[in-house]
């Protein structure tokens, strides 16, 4: 029974990871930009809960006020489009994003 649960969890993680590649990395490309974004979010929102909430909020309804990017950048490229993902998937993707790129786990 334990084995089954463990296998299910691992496969779910891989499933989520592959969804992340598909839903996020397919457009955003490399890790560098994601790193930068996480730094910006961490610098502004500090805690895990607030960072995740801020990302979710922005992706659902992107505005220049909510964006963590510099005003000049937004002015030039504009804000991104609204997400097409449902809330549940979006939150899962944000969780994967945070787990991979958060600063806290990289401090030594």
């Amino acid at each position, binding site marked *: 029974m334990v084995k089954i649960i463990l296998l299910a969890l691992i496969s779910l993680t891989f499933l989520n990871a592959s969804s992340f590649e598909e839903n996020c990395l397919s457009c955003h490309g490399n890790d560098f930009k994601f790193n930068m974004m996480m730094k910006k979010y961490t610098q502004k929102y500090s805690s895990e809960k607030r960072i995740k909430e801020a990302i979710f909020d922005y992706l659902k309804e992107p505005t220049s006020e909510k964006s963590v990017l510099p005003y000049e950048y937004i002015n030039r490229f504009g804000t991104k489009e609204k997400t097409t993902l449902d809330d549940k998937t979006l939150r899962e993707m944000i969780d994967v994003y945070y787990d991979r790129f958060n600063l806290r786990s990289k401090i*030594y």
Partner: protein
Amino acid sequence: MYKSEKQTIFYVLGLYLSSTLLLIATLFATYYFYKQDELMHAEREILKEYSSALEEKLLFVHENSDERYEYPRFENFKSAIYDIDKKLIFSTLDTKIDNLDKDFFFKGSNSYYISSLKPHYLGAAYSVVEKKRKPIDILNDLIITALIIITITIITSFFLVKLVLKPLRDNLRLLDNFIKETTHELNTPITTILANIETLDSKSCDEKSMRKLQRIKTASTTISNLYQDLVYLLLNHQISSQNEELNISEILNQRVHYFSQAANVKKLNLHVDIKEGVCFNADRQKIERLIDNILSNAIKYTNKSTTIKVVLTQHTFSVSDEGKGMSQDEIRTIFQRYRRFDKTQGGFGIGYSIIKSIIDEYCIKINIESELDKGTKVTLTW
């Protein structure tokens, strides 16, 4: 130095010293707390600088690292950072900090400073810096200074009290000298009067002259008794006790007989109940002074035509009169020298002072029961 004088010196010294000590303690405590406050302020400033240094380093690490972030470490202090929800991000501290609301505090031997950070580099919303607390080492110096000041104060106050009491001492010495000289002058006439009365032939006098003679004898006895008291008091510190086994019953009988004349003048009824063969090891002269003073007091202060009871048992001697009695306050102060409650009677107020010195020497307990307008009972127990 008299006992009362010593007592006054102690009281004044106590009062003077306690007020001075209170003043010194207040001054020193104020100074100590002021220094402590100054030190705390200095500590806070140092920690504030450390906190700024940490913030600068956090900014540097946040901006210049990508994959891994090396937490800034310092030689002279330790630190920790917390996120905006007060969850620990990273710490090099030895202890855990629970409360991030106070900005500066001491815990154990360390001092801590907490500051809010914005922007939140590495996610840090609060930084905590910790350093070893600098001890306040002025306490020992303060104690030594206080001890020196207290010593000087004690010495000064002692001389001050002596100076203030000097006029009082001079007056007492004058009184003592006066009594001493008067006593010497009294000796010869009293002895002459008493010796001559004793040798008078009672048969050659008529009844009226005889009564007059008896009165002269009583008065002379009183003066003689007073003389004996004064001599005892003046020489008290110079003579050593010649202790011997005394037959108290015999001495008491003699002394009662000696005072019977004085009792007759006041028409007193002397009720004497003396157990035979009661012995006590003491100086004869002192025991006579003791008995004489108790008896003469009873005769002097009792009312006319009343009864005086003199009772001697194996271990007690009591004399009770039916005089005006004393209050509890008067009994408490009775043993003070020159203390007299009834100014209508003659005397110097030295009787009970003598009684006290003798009973103290022979460890005899005294009990004075007295009721105003009813009488007094003095009991000695050994």
